[in-house]
Structure formats: structure tokens, C-alpha cells
């Protein structure tokens, strides 16, 4: 789950990007509207955490820019101004949720998960495929009701694949979901994670399509 955090306070920005990574998300941080525009132009994000007061404009402008392009990426507004009219304005401009500062890291993560779930039209918070169950909230995976211990990256890969069972995810798509810009991606990192996953949940779930990518195997095992 790739998140863009737009926040001008360096300490909070650092806190959000680090904190969200603790919740199994790959977060990128920018501190100006301008940087947010370029980030949005080059990368697809699962959700955006947007501060309202930025040094070179208002977060509302970024939001407007996004919605004008018909980009439906869920947006969680962060602001210190929590007057009702501010909230209403933000939501009416196309924001999906609203959180007043100061907030709990857990709540930000939970709201982002909820936003993603809603954007994908899922009803259940858990991702279920046959007897494989993945809980994005608690970062737990069970197979036949037995817990499976996955690393953060492995969890990310499985999560990305289980979001759309049967649909192929390319290696670069998976990398985008797993790593922020700051992070060094090894040339065969995804292969390594897939290999480890297969070792932990068994080889039958993940199918490799050479040259295309990976997917959850739909046909009966």
C-alpha cells in the first residue's frame, strides 16, 4: 500500500512516513504543493495524506488539481483547523476523510485502510482467498486458521496480490507498492520475497507468469 504524505512540518512528516511503514505501508513524504504535483504525476498511490496549510499554497488546491484530473485516489485531510465549515469545505472539494491534529498514528493507518477498502468496493476488512486470510489491520496472515509469520515486505507482496486474485501484478507494480522513493530496491528483491512467501504459505497460491509478473492462482489446486 503506497501512501503519499503531504505535510510541511518536517518532524510530523518524518513521523508519518516512518509510522505508516510500521503499519505495513510504503509512505513517501513531500512538503510542498509543487512536490506533491510532481509526485502525483509520476507515481500511483493507494491514498494521500494531505495537510491543508502548505508553504506554497493550500492542500485544497492539490485536492482540486487531483479531482480535476478525474483522479479518484482517496484523500485523507489533516488539519489543525477543525471548524465545521473547514471540514465541510474539504469534503465538498473531494476529500474522502478528515482528521484533526494531533491524531493517533493507529487512527491514521486505520482510516487509510478504510479508505482503500472503500475505494476498492470491498465490504470485509480482511482479504480472504480460500483458506488463506490476510488482515491488513493487525498485519496477520492465517492459513487454515494457523498463523503464518511474514516479514513486512512479504506481507506487502501477498496483500497486493490478494487484493485482486487472478489479476497479474508486474514486478515494477509490486515494487511500487512496497518501496518508497528513498528506499534502495535490490534488482531481485521481489523474486526473493515471492520465494520466501512460497516457502511459508506453500507453493500453490502464487503463480509466476514469466515476463509478465505474479498472480494468485485461481484454478482449483
Amino acid at each position, binding site marked *: 500500500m503506497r501512501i503519499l504524505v503531504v505535510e*510541511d512540518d518536517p518532524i510530523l512528516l518524518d513521523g508519518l512516513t516512518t509510522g505508516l511503514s510500521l503499519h505495513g505501508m510504503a509512505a513517501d513524504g513531500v512538503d510542498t504543493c509543487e512536490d506533491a504535483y510532481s509526485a502525483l504525476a509520476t507515481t500511483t498511490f493507494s491514498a494521500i495524506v494531505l495537510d491543508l496549510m502548505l508553504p*506554497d499554497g493550500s492542500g485544497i488546491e492539490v485536492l482540486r488539481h487531483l479531482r480535476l484530473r478525474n483522479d479518484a485516489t482517496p484523500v485523507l485531510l489533516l488539519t489543525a483547523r477543525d471548524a465545521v465549515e473547514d471540514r465541510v469545505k474539504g469534503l465538498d472539494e473531494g476529500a474522502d476523510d478528515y482528521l484533526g491534529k494531533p491524531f493517533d498514528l493507529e487512527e491514521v493507518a486505520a482510516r487509510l485502510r478504510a479508505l482503500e477498502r472503500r475505494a476498492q468496493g470491498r465490504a470485509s476488512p480482511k482479504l480472504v482467498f480460500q483458506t488463506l486470510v490476510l488482515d491488513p489491520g493487525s498485519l496477520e496472515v492465517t492459513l487454515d486458521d494457523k498463523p503464518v509469520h511474514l516479514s513486512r515486505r512479504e506481507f506487502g507482496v501477498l496483500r497486493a496480490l490478494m487484493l485482486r486474485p487472478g489479476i497479474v501484478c508486474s514486478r515494477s507494480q509490486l515494487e511500487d507498492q512496497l518501496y518508497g522513493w528513498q528506499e534502495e530496491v535490490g534488482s531481485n528483491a521481489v523474486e526473493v520475497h515471492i520465494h520466501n512467501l512460497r516457502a511459508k504459505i506453500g507453493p500453490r497460491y502464487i503463480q509466476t507468469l514469466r515476463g509478465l509478473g505474479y498472480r494468485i492462482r485461481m484454478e482449483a489446486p
Partner: protein
Amino acid sequence: MNSLRARLLLILIASTSAIWLCGFAWIYVDARQETQHLLDRRLMEAARMVLSLSAPGTLANDPNLPVVVSAGGPIAGASYEHILTCQVWSFDGRLVGRSGNAPASKLTEQPVGFSERVVDGEIYRVYAAEDPVKRVRVLVGDNLEQRQRFVRDLVRSLLIPAAFILPMLAILIWISVKQGLEPLQHATRSLSARDAENLTPLDVGRSPSEIRPLINALNGLFGKVVAAREHERSFVAYAAHEMRTPLAGLKTQVQIAAQATVPEMRTNALCQALKGVDRTSRLVQQLLAMSRLDASPPRLQDQWINLAAAFRDVTAHMSRDLLPERVTIAASVRNHSVAIDREMFDLAARNLVENALQLTPPDGTVRLSVTQEGHEAKICIEDDGPGIPSGEEELVLQRFFRGRHKSASGSGLGLAIVTTALDRAGAKLRLCSPGGGHGLRAEIIVSSNRVRLDDAA
């Protein structure tokens, strides 16, 4: 006089009364003249009539004839009886005849025409006419006292209706004034009826042109109050943002420290939290400084301050993290003193030097110097920082504006405090990036007579 209505009423009643008084004076004078004229004509006519009635040669030439005295009793119903007195004298000085009310002595010595004379204590206006053929002189007189009574009665008959009309006029004036001032009353009522929070403009539409400027001025004032309140509100909103954001940062970092799985992550989070605490406490300090500046115009006391000593004092109290040893003080600063309020100057200097130190890379320097140009003396603080990006020159002076080249501990209040403090102290701040967008020079500008060269420095 505070009441417009009472004032108008007084003016209108006074002027109306004055006009009425003038009118009466005029009527009185005019009536007197006219009656004088009319009664004089009557005297003349009466004299001529008496003259024509006296038979030629009879009365005048017989000295033995007794004096004819006509009875001339009062005429019933007439209030001006005995107006005319008449004497007929022969040319040889004998009283031939007289009316009953006429005195025995001669009414006038003047042979012909009008004259006035006091006879038996009463003033008479007398007309004399003579007939040289009949050799008689007829004197017809009018008692002036009676004439004046006549005129007085005439004027009195005019005054009695006026006594009724004037109060009615006063009432009419009172009602008219009340009606005329109704729009004003309306405006007053609508103003006093609104509560203190209601700052919507008054309706100009129906108000008369005279009070429209007043209403427009009031609306202008309302606009200013609204703007000031808006400014205050946005200040509070910004202040809240500025407080809540570092708090949110702190909370997040502390939560990370609590949840961190690797020691580096915990250490980093705690470092960030410390920075956050520093920044928040600095923000609180700056907010307090700003509100102190805003709250009361302090009593300013200009005193001569040696610049180098003042700056050394400022850097001595600075956090060691800012590496204040990077500040270099030019020789020109050491022997200059400036006459300025100490507190304001310290506040401005501290903020400017802090800004410069925060923005300058660790190996850069912050240079202090003094230059004089014409009437201006400039105290310059130059840094090696990134300068101010074009388009932000005005914005950086605003409260809570933190530009693209902001520092982690900046509150966004520093330059706003500097401008306010210098403004209070009668100095100015100018910012320029001399090195083509690189480095920033902040200049404190004072008039050159407030800067002096110290002899033994």
C-alpha cells in the same frame, strides 16, 4: 445642545418668532405712518370745511360777538371721541369760536400748515388754514395721545390672532421636525437594536442623501472591524495550526518510539521528538513575544547602545546548537552606537541573527556590519543561507509564513516580530538577496542621526 431635534426646534421657533417680530415692527411703523398721513388729511379737510362754513365778514369782523362754543358731546359707541379740536381765530387775534374740547389758548402760533405743540400739558398736532378774504384762521388739532392709542389698538388687533397662531406654528414645527428626522430615528433604532456581533452593513437604499455619508462611513467602519476580527480569527487559526502541528509530530514520534522494532528507529524517533519539543517551546516563546508586542505599545526609551556589545549579548544567550560562533562582527560595528529602545532592538537583533544562523550551512558565516548612506544608517546581518525565493519577499514578513527554505525550528513568527519591534522603535527592516538569490542580507535602517561613532572603542 445635544439633541438635533431640540436644536432644530429652537432654531426654527427662534427664527419664526424673529420674522414675526420684524413683521410686527414693520406693520407698526407702516400703520403709524399711514394713520398719521390719513389723520393729517382729515385735519386738513376739517380745517378747510370749517373755513368754508364760516360766513364771510360776519364772525371775523365783529369784535363784540361772543365766542361760539359748540357742545360737541360724545358720540355713542365711538371709542375715539373728541379727536378733533377746532379753534377759529380772527386775523386780529380774537378767538371767534372753538369746539367744546378745545383749550382756550391758541393751539399754534404758526399761521399756515402743520405744527405740533404742547397745550395744557397735551401734545397736539395742529393744522392751520387761513382765509385772507374772511380774515379768519382756522386751527384744527388732533390729540397725539389719542392718535397713538389708535395705532396701538390697530396693532393689538393684529397681535391677538398672532398669539393663537404662534403656538400652533410651534406645534406644527415640532411635528414637522419629528417627521423630518424620522429617517435618522430609523437608522438610530436599527443601530441600537442590533447586537454587538452583527456587523452587516446598514441598508443605504431608503436613507436620505444627508445621512447617507454617515451610513456609508459607518458601513466602512463595520467593514474594517470585520476585517480586523477576521485577521484576529485567522491569527488564532494559524496559531492553533502552529501549536497542533508540532504536537501531532511529537505524538507520532513518541508512538513510533514506543512501537519501534529496531533500536535505530527508536533513537531517531526520540531525536525527532526532542527537536519537536524544542520547536514547540520556541514557538510558545515567540507567540508570547508577539502577543506582548501586540498587546501594549510599550513605553520606549531610546538609549545609546554599542552595537558590538548588543550583538555579543544576543549571541551569548543563544542555543549552542545554532553555532553562534559563526557570527563575525565587522570592525565598523565595534565603534558604532545606535540610539534605540534596548528591548525592541534586542528582540529584532536576536530574531534576525537566529534566522541567519538557522539558514546558514554549518561552514558558512553570519556577518554583521554598519554602513552609512546619506540620511540612512544600515545595520546589516548577512548570511550564507539560501536567501528568499522570488515571490516570497513580501510573504516572509507575514505571521506564520514559513517559506520553502524553512528551518525545522522556525515558528514563522520571527520576521513578523522583527518588523513589529523595529516599527515600534522607529526603525525599518529591509531584506535583500545580494548574491543573485543566494544569501540573505537583513538591514535594520535608522536615520543617521541615531547612529554615532564611539571614540574609544
